[in-house]
């Protein structure tokens, strides 16, 4: 379906002149678009359609563990008979179970709070970087990106040794005499917040930095000359100008945090409810493929709005770059 609409619709805007190389060039133009397009249709779009279909299937003790399986051997009538077997039961079941509802709500809350915390911590860092001497900026940028290149799993794992009751943070706090008893941080929501803020901080700092670096600081000086106090200068000038970076950074933190599995699993302990973890358990422990597909579809529906916001922000940034 998508394939035919692509292949007959490719028109290049580079005004292919009817020269000797014209035909070869037209084929080349098509391939440049067609190859990545087809790849993404096969390995990105079709898989989602399959998830959607399986979310409407029923669980079965078989391999694959769901019914109906659409097979070519049944012919067209078999296809429609199978189509009639699809049900919304999985979704009804999900809405009927408070566990799933709570998991969605707590994922949204955790992702939202983490996003705000990341913004609050990331903004001063990005601002400080943007005001650093020009010669120092590439190095600072490099230092923000470097942790991103080191393994995500390792960085989350490193926090276990710091946060656990006999861990380094508690040892340090007891040594300084701030606390007498070890604090319980690992396996709580606090640990999840620390994990998410830490892991996603570069995603927040980079778009903020690129917005703040372009800012004209004489605007702030002018505001100060006119008697504007620094705090209201911040809200009236700096923050609005940084808004594209704020939106992009927040989306880059919020969306993946919603579906996060590794951080709640390693730092949050067994009691935390997050939807990515629920999906993982449903799939690997209960082996219920239709229900985990339905969990994924609802998660995706919740993320449609933020993902579109992100794409718009991205498109706007690109237009400015041109």
């Amino acid at each position: 379906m998508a394939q035919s609409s692509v292949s007959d619709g490719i028109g290049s805007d580079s005004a292919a002149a009817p020269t000797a190389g014209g035909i070869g060039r037209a084929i080349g133009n098509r391939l440049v678009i067609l190859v990545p397009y087809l790849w993404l249709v096969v390995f990105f779009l079709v898989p989602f359609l399959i998830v959607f279909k399986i979310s409407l299937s029923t669980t079965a003790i078989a391999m694959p563990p769901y019914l109906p399986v659409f097979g070519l051997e049944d012919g067209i009538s078999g296809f429609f008979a199978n189509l009639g077997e699809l049900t919304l039961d999985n979704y009804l079941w999900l809405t009927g179970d408070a566990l799933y509802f709570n998991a969605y709500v707590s994922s949204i809350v955790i992702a939202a709070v983490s996003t705000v915390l990341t913004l609050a911590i990331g903004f001063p860092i990005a601002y400080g970087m943007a005001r650093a001497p020009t010669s120092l900026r590439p190095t600072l940028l490099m230092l923000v990106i470097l942790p991103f290149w080191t393994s995500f799993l390792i960085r989350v794992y490193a926090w276990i040794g710091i946060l656990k009751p006999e861990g380094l943070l508690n040892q340090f706090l007891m040594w300084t005499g701030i606390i007498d008893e070890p604090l319980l941080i690992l396996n709580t929501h606090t640990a999840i917040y620390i994990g998410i803020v830490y892991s996603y901080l570069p995603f927040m700092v980079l778009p903020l930095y690129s917005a703040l670096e372009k800012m004209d600081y004489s605007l702030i000086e002018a505001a100060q000359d006119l008697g504007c106090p620094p705090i209201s200068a911040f809200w009236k000038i700096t923050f609005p100008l940084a808004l594209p970076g704020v939106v992009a950074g927040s989306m880059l933190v919020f969306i993946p945090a919603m579906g996060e599995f590794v951080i709640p699993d390693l730092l949050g302990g067994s009691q935390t409810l997050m939807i990515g973890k629920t999906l993982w358990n449903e799939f690997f422990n209960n082996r219920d493929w239709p229900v985990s597909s339905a969990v994924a579809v609802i998660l995706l529906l919740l993320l449609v709005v933020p993902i579109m916001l992100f794409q718009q922000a991205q498109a706007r940034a690109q237009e400015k770059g041109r």
Partner: protein
Amino acid sequence: MNTTWSRFNIASVVLGFAFLYLPIVLLIIFSFNESKLVTVWAGFSTKWYGELFRNQGLIDAAWVTARVGFISASFATVLGTLAALALTRYTRFRGRVLFSGMVFAPLVMPEVITGLSLLLLFVAIGFDRGFVTVTLAHITFSMCFVAVVVQSRLITFDRSLEEAAMDLGATPVKTFFAITLPVILPAIISGWMLAFTLSLDDLVIASFTSGPGATTLPMKIYSQVRLGVTPEINAACTLLIAVVATGVLVASIVNKSREVQRQRDEQAAQRN
């Protein structure tokens, strides 16, 4: 006024970087710990590195990860570069909105969804899970990161250079290899490295799409971490960090010297 402001700036940058680097530094330090207890320092020792090299399971997993990373990064770089060219050079073709959506969505898509959907695809078409399926999955999500990196370079590219080459009679293919490719090469190289590290790093998607005999290093580390933290894993992580940091450092030095060379060439050309 100005000095306090800049002091505040310096403080936030320094504290921010301390926050980013302290956990990694502590992990590296404790990988040289004599004691089996990860959080109690009992003197310097490299014995966990020795243990590491005797752990055949970890070495096998590292080898699988390296091969998956190399193959998937290479394919992802080609596909991602094509996607970036398609997005910047062809502003209208049917399905462009869908295409750009599919390029950007995997960047933010929660890994559990990507992993689950790819697994269900492989089951639906009856493809046995293993090395190949992990590689296909990694190509798919990392090509999108390559596309974004290369695209940002292509946007600032001066197309009059290409037009000049074509006016002088170069074929489009020749123009691409003689003009376009050398200019966007740094972006392509950093795209490849990004794809490679993303593949090296991925736990969730690999867990969904891999089968028996294709356990990657993150999967191995993850299963060991769940059993309890050991200094051996600290050592494995330190080595991984060292490999990646060296790669990034070498790449940035190479990039920098190319830049310096380019500036020198330009100055020389101007003087003549």
